[in-house]
Every structure is written in structure tokens, then in C-alpha cells.
């Protein structure tokens, strides 16, 4: 009788901790998923800022300068933030598709290409030629889109 009670207690403790363990596990991914989403938002903000400035009659170069740098550094920060398990299976809202981990080599090579284009944008922007800046932003945009089409959930 006493033993059975003991077992029941153990079972109770075990059951109580199971969801906590699961929550802890997903919390680990929650953080990284939220971090990369925040970084992408920053990159999006920087892309928009460049587009906005290049269209103005009197573009503010300091905005473009800081934005192009933010894109290049932001992409570098996000690239390593796709650990196995942080995809749809994490159970947290993310647009990252499973195909990222199925084709990791392609994902990485596309990412590297995007970073190359972002670095080129930093150089081009230094010339303060809005036409060239816009054209290079477009080239970067094509890399972004190519990757998104393959590895991001399309609503």
C-alpha cells in the first residue's frame, strides 16, 4: 500500500515535470526564433529606409550609409540562427520551412550570396549615386526573394 502511494507520487512528479520540460525545450527555440524575426524586421526596415531615401529629391546619405551597413551586419547575425529543431516542428509561429534543413547546403550558399550582394551594396552606396544604389538594392532583393521563395512559408 505504502509503495503504491510512493509510486503514485513519483508518477505525479513525473507528469508535472513533463510539460515543464517540453516548455523549456520550446522556450530555447522561442528565443532564437523571436531573435531572428526581430533581426529580419530590422533588415526590412533598413531596406525600406534605403528605398525611401533613394526616391527622395534630397536623399539623406547618412540614412543610406547606416542602413546598408545594418543589412550586411544583420544578415551575418541571422545566418547562424537556424539550428536544427527551430523550424515548424518547434511549435512556435515561424515561417521557416523544413526545406532549410533538408537542403542546408543550398540554404547556406544562397545566404552567402546574399551577404556578398549586401557587402557590394555598402560599397556602391559610398558613391552616393542613387541610381546605382537602387540598382544594387534590386540585385540584393533578387537574392533575398530567391531564398524566400524556397525556404520561407508563403502566406
Amino acid at each position, binding site marked *: 500500500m505504502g509503495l503504491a502511494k510512493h509510486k503514485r507520487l513519483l508518477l505525479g512528479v513525473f507528469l508535472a515535470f513533463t510539460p515543464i520540460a517540453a516548455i523549456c525545450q520550446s522556450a530555447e527555440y522561442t528565443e532564437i526564433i523571436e531573435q531572428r524575426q526581430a533581426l529580419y*524586421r530590422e*533588415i*526590412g*526596415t*533598413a*531596406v*525600406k*529606409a534605403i*528605398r*525611401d531615401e533613394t*526616391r*527622395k*529629391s534630397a536623399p539623406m546619405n547618412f540614412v543610406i550609409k547606416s542602413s546598408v551597413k545594418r543589412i550586411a551586419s544583420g544578415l551575418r547575425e541571422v545566418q547562424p540562427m537556424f539550428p536544427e529543431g527551430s523550424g515548424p516542428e518547434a511549435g512556435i509561429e515561424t515561417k521557416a520551412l523544413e526545406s532549410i534543413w533538408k537542403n542546408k547546403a543550398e540554404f547556406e550558399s544562397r545566404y552567402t550570396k546574399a551577404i556578398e550582394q549586401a557587402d557590394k551594396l555598402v560599397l556602391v552606396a559610398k558613391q552616393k549615386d542613387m541610381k546605382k544604389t537602387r540598382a544594387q*538594392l534590386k540585385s540584393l*532583393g533578387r537574392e*533575398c*526573394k530567391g531564398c*524566400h521563395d524556397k525556404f520561407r512559408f508563403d502566406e
Partner: protein
Amino acid sequence: MNQVRKIWDAPTRLVHWALVVLIPFSWWTHDDHMDWHLMSGYAVLGLLIFRLLWGFVGSTTARFTHFVRAPGEVLGYLPSLLTRERSQFTGHNPLGGWSSLVLLFALLSQLVSGLFAVDVDGLESGPLSYRVDFDLARQFANWHETSFIVLQVLIVVHIAAVLFYLVYKRSNLIRSMITGSGISNDAQPITFASWWRIGCVTIVAVFVAWWVAAGFQL
């Protein structure tokens, strides 16, 4: 006394059918042809500005004062929907008038939200999005999407109503909107706007649409 007479002027009909072409075109181009989507949007903007102005200075049947009626009149009109008799109104009936107004408003919401919207990557944006930050522009984009669902529903209701009038009430509203003529059983006078008035309003509409498309920067 039923008689065939001219009801709708050319500009009103032209705006209507141009929208019939451009709204599906905008829908089709929104995914992969953003340049065309924007051009189409500017054209719709010009058409809407024209139509709104036309609601104040256009021909009789195009004017808001002519077709926007009191709620009591709309309620009074409802029972006649069940009868197969022809409508007693020249131009929009009281319910149709409100339906036009709601459609115009939905289109306005669609346009305004699109002007300020930006896509999730910051790569594509409306001409006025530079006036708001990324997060707000994203909210405008969400509004643009929701607004389109509402617009689609309203268009389906509009088409269903036109078919109801065609089949049940034996009143061909489609032909009237093409030819401008329809059967009317009242002698209410209709004044049609002159060509110079059409020209003036067109110039204003094109100029304002162009100014907005240029992001208020001339």
C-alpha cells in the same frame, strides 16, 4: 409609362467598366508583377477620384444627392424586391445607391492602404510608404489584404444582385451600364454633363492621381 431613355452618361459607364478590368488585373499582378500592380493602382486611383468628383458635379444619375437616400426610403423599397415588377426609380434604386457608395468606400480603403503599404522584405512599397515607418507600413499591408477580402465579398454580392435583377425582376442592368439606356417609368428630368465639364474633372483626377503616385513630390 415605360419608355427607353438614356440614364447613364458615358464617363460613369467608362469608370465602371475600367474598374471591371483593372480590379482583376491588380489582383493578378499583386504577387509577381509589382510594377504593373502599382500602375494599375494609380489608374484605379484616378478613376476613383474622377468618380467621387463626378458624384458632386456630374450628370444627374451619377450624383450622390440623387442616389443616396434616407434609410427610411431604403426600408420602404425592400418589399418591392420580392415582386417581379420593374423598379420605379431612374438610375440607382435606394438600395442600389447605398451599394454603390459602399463599393466606392471599399475601393477607397483598398487604395489608401496600398499607397502606404510595404512588403515584408521592404523591397516593394506604395508611393506614400516613405511617410510611415516599417511597422506601420506593414500594418497598412495587412489592411490592404483584409480590405481586398471585403472588396471581393462586396463584388460577389453586387454581381449576385445584378443577376437577381436580370433573372427575377427581368431588368437588364448590364445592358444599361453598357449602352447607357434603360427602361424607365418616370419622367424625371436628367441633366447630362457637358464635354468641357468631363474634360475639367478628368484633368483634376489625372493630376491628383499623378501627384499621389509621385509621393506628393512634384
